[in-house]
């Protein structure tokens, strides 16, 4: 007879009544619990020597310092690094789950080749010679410009190596996802073809006006933002949050202005109207920092009266006037932009409308304000050499016009063979790009796709060849961090453990492919290996980085190199651009970002999934939040299912009624619906990006879709 624990328990209860006074049952229980717990399959973690090593987290653009605890050669815990300029000891749910990524089942353990839909292990020699041959053939055919690359970032030595490779090879087709930094840069007149990055001196601000910025929800460098936000609580800094839903930031703000979705720019202009009317602006600073003020002033005064703005935004005019006055009178006010985590660029109109507030009150390049920082170009490599093939290739037009990644899928669909080979490094476009189904369709058309991913993500799964990178705990790399910091940083990762699998540093792979191709391509990569290349590229920063893992790039603006802000004359008919037909889709779908959801290219590890509340996900259902009145109109109840339809797709969702959102708005959690990764993540919920598609800003061409029209029907 087999007695299991539960069965033992029921025996025990019956017996206890009569024998409670005797010590025997207690002794027995103890013995039996010892016996019943000797399961050989419960692991006993081996003991060993404890050590701590500092490094940098690369799992989001935040660039936090981490301290990794090891037992002998095992990573058992990642903690926030104390006194680090970004996070000072704090850490987030994703950063904490790092060991699960390192040791998890999603790691790609060796180079893999996709043979008719199944991946087969191959050796590095095979992989490298195959790819080199392909590249040589394409180049010989004079089609070098059909080789493209997508990187997760435009900064740092690895993206730079990929771009350098493409250049030397003869392709202008290097892409990465646009962000609010691009919008900011475009709203300025640049000195010499430079880029301008916003740096926020939030720690010293005394009045923060946030236009949907997820200060507590993962914007910029998430932990730095939380810490700045808490310092405001202790000091007397006021936070005003403009946002259609009660986000964690709105919940922490001193005042929540629940604007109608997409009306942020109009509200900003209404506030500007107050500042202009009451002469609360700083004319000297405006002259110094910007162009086009007087025409702009006339237009704003003519068309953005608080009463009119109130009608459109849903924020009453008294509040608009109060906020305008408070902002104008504050000593160090700052307006901050970028919805949610700030991954979606803003239209030039909105960018300009919001940043105009900063320019008006003269807080640009001042304590507590916004700094116009130059691109941190710290990599010092020798000149690249180009042969005639490269030069010809580089003269072709970029496949995606303007170098905008969101245009790549449609360009590929339009012209067969416009991309014959694609490299993807530190990015997961088949999950993170909007209109994901179309992206995947276009991706599949590319004859040969190469992923450098360490993890089996969506893009890797659809690739022809995976050349897995070491994980961030197994490699050296520079980690440039801008993310709204007052001073950009260079962080540094180093191998905490030896590579567990047959992986290779992406830097090494690119260098060895280039060198194998010889000629001018080979000679543009004069390094034996990535480490040498990194050391060479970092120059003076190498020593401090090796010793301390982080270097701050201090920047003091001087007049000559200050990019000037260009006031964008606002439309005289304020409008909100949204894809879809208002008649059959009268709801507005907006994403909700949260620090407990990873919406970037790294999927959530199991621990992170555990923190998701059951108002976001139950079983495999994504839960959307709507106002009870919206539900009433549509005949929906708490917990029921509905079909959510947008111009892009339709999905079955579960309903949660919330008083934290206005009528006719749907809030949808962003970061779920993975199809790849492991069983802890795959198949859970819906990918928001599938429901929405690119909407281009007329001025910049950037994809500025912040939401989409939608309908809900009871399922």
């Amino acid at each position: 007879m087999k007695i299991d624990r539960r069965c033992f328990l029921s025996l025990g209860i019956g017996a206890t009544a009569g024998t409670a006074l005797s010590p025997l049952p207690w002794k027995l229980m103890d013995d039996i619990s010892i016996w019943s717990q000797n399961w050989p399959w419960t692991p006993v973690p081996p003991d060993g020597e404890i050590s701590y090593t500092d490094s940098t987290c690369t799992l989001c653009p935040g660039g936090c310092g981490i301290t990794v605890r090891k037992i002998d050669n095992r990573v058992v815990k990642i903690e926030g690094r104390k006194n680090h300029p970004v996070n000072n000891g704090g850490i987030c749910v994703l950063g904490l789950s790092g060991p699960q990524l390192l040791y998890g089942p999603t790691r790609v353990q060796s180079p893999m080749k996709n043979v008719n839909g199944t991946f087969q292990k191959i050796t590095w020699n095979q992989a490298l010679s195959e790819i080199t041959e392909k590249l040589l053939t394409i180049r010989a055919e004079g089609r070098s410009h059909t080789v493209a690359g997508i990187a997760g970032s435009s900064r740092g030595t690895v993206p730079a190596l990929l771009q350098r490779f493409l250049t030397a090879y003869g392709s202008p087709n290097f892409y990465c996802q646009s962000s609010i930094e691009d919008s900011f840069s475009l709203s300025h007149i640049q000195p010499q073809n430079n880029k301008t990055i916003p740096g926020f001196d939030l720690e010293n601000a005394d009045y923060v006006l946030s236009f949907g910025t997820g200060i507590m929800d993962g914007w910029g460098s998430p932990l730095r933002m939380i810490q700045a936000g808490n310092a405001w609580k202790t000091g007397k800094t006021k936070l005003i949050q403009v946002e259609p839903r009660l986000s964690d930031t709105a919940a922490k703000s001193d005042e929540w202005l629940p604007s109608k979705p997409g009306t942020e720019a109009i509200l900003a202009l209404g506030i500007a109207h107050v500042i202009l009317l009451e002469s609360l602006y700083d004319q000297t600073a405006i002259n110094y920092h910007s162009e086009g003020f007087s025409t702009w002033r006339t237009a704003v005064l003519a068309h953005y009266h608080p009463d009119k703005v109130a009608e459109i935004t849903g924020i009453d005019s008294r509040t608009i006037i109060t906020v305008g006055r408070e902002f104008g009178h504050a000593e160090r006010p700052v307006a901050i932009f970028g919805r949610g985590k700030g991954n979606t660029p803003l239209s030039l109109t909105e960018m300009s409308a919001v940043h105009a507030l900063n320019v008006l009150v003269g807080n640009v390049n001042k304590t507590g304000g916004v700094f116009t920082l130059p691109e941190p170009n710290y990599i010092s490599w020798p000149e690249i050499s180009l042969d005639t093939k490269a030069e010809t290739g580089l003269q072709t037009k970029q496949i995606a016009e303007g170098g905008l990644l969101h245009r790549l899928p449609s360009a590929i669909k339009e012209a067969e063979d416009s991309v014959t080979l694609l490299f993807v490094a530190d990015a997961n476009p088949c999950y993170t790009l909007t209109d994901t189904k179309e992206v995947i369709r276009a991706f599949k058309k590319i004859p040969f796709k190469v992923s450098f991913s360490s993890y089996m993500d969506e893009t890797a799964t659809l690739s022809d060849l995976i050349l897995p990178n070491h994980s961030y705990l197994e490699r050296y790399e520079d980690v440039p961090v801008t993310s709204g910091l007052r001073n950009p940083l260079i962080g540094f990762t180093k191998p905490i453990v030896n590579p567990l699998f047959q992986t290779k540093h992406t830097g090494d792979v690119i260098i060895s492919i280039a060198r194998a191709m010889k000629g001018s391509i080979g000679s543009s990569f004069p390094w034996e290996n990535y480490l040498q290349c990194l050391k060479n590229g970092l120059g003076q920063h190498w020593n401090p980085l090796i010793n301390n893992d982080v270097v701050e790039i201090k920047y003091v603006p001087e007049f000559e190199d200050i990019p000037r802000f260009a006031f964008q004359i606002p439309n005289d008919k304020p409008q909100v651009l949204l894809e879809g037909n208002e008649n059959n889709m009268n709801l507005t779908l907006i994403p909700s970002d949260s620090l407990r959801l990873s919406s970037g290219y790294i999927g959530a590890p199991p621990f992170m999934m555990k923190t998701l509340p059951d108002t976001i996900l139950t079983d495999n259902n994504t839960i959307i939040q709507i106002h009870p009145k919206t539900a009433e109109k549509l005949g929906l109840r708490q917990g029921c299912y509905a079909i959510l339809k947008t111009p892009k797709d339709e999905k079955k969702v579960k309903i949660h009624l919330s008083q934290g959102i206005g009528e006719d708005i749907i809030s949808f959690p962003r970061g779920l619906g993975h199809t790849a990764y492991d069983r802890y993540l795959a198949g859970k919920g819906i990918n928001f990006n599938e429901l929405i598609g690119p909407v281009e800003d007329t001025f910049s061409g950037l994809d500025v879709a912040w939401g989409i029209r939608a309908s809900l029907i009871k399922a």
Partner: protein
Amino acid sequence: MTQEYRKEKKYGMVIDLDKCTGCGACMVACMAENNVPFRDNETDKLKSITWMRVYQLNNGKSYPNEEICYLPRPCMHCEGHNGHSPCVTVCPAIATDYDRETGIVSQIITRCFGCRYCMGACPYHARYFNWWDPVWPDGMEKSLSPNVSPRMRGVVEKCTFCFHRYQLAYEKAASEGRRELRENEYQPSCTQACPAGAITFGDLINKNQAVYKMKKDPRAFRLLERLGTNPKIYYLSSREWVRRAGDNYHPDEETGIVKNHR
């Protein structure tokens, strides 16, 4: 063997809800420190093991006047009257105990045989039952810490204030010839991780430690204070509706009568 005399401690926390942003880092910091198992579906929150869980409260008002507040809930390490914690008193196997030296309510999993009386007795839902054996995907068992034994099916587990950290800190201090720990030498994993600095941990009866003063803050309250559980977690909130949410108050009753640990 004679054990040298150590001063009695009452370790506890003061959690500032005005600071907590609900980021959830404390939850994962706890899981990672204590080898907490996970399953492929963790959405049934009754079965999801989270020693530290962050609850969301709201003020019950309608849009746009709704307010939300996050409340991290570890084990309260209830002192009850003189060490009679609700869970300790009901355990037939002495698998959970009130440690008079530290004030920590321990959980000795090798003694627990899974009757779950303690779960019924705990008014804070701080205890979790292992309905299944833990399974780590191949290779991930490498990330397990040797300081905390993984649990098996059929036992109850809960927050221990990272007791192993106390032991390690104490060993270290002892090796340096000290009998008393400094305030920052022993800090639980959640406290250390919190990016908002919302959790303060220390000896509630030591006048020199931060928690001693903080627990007397006029914003302070404890959960279900009037049950007499005498919990060692104090919360701070400047919002009256949050403090009211901490217990079952009559509409005309006042909050704010906190009896402090002495």
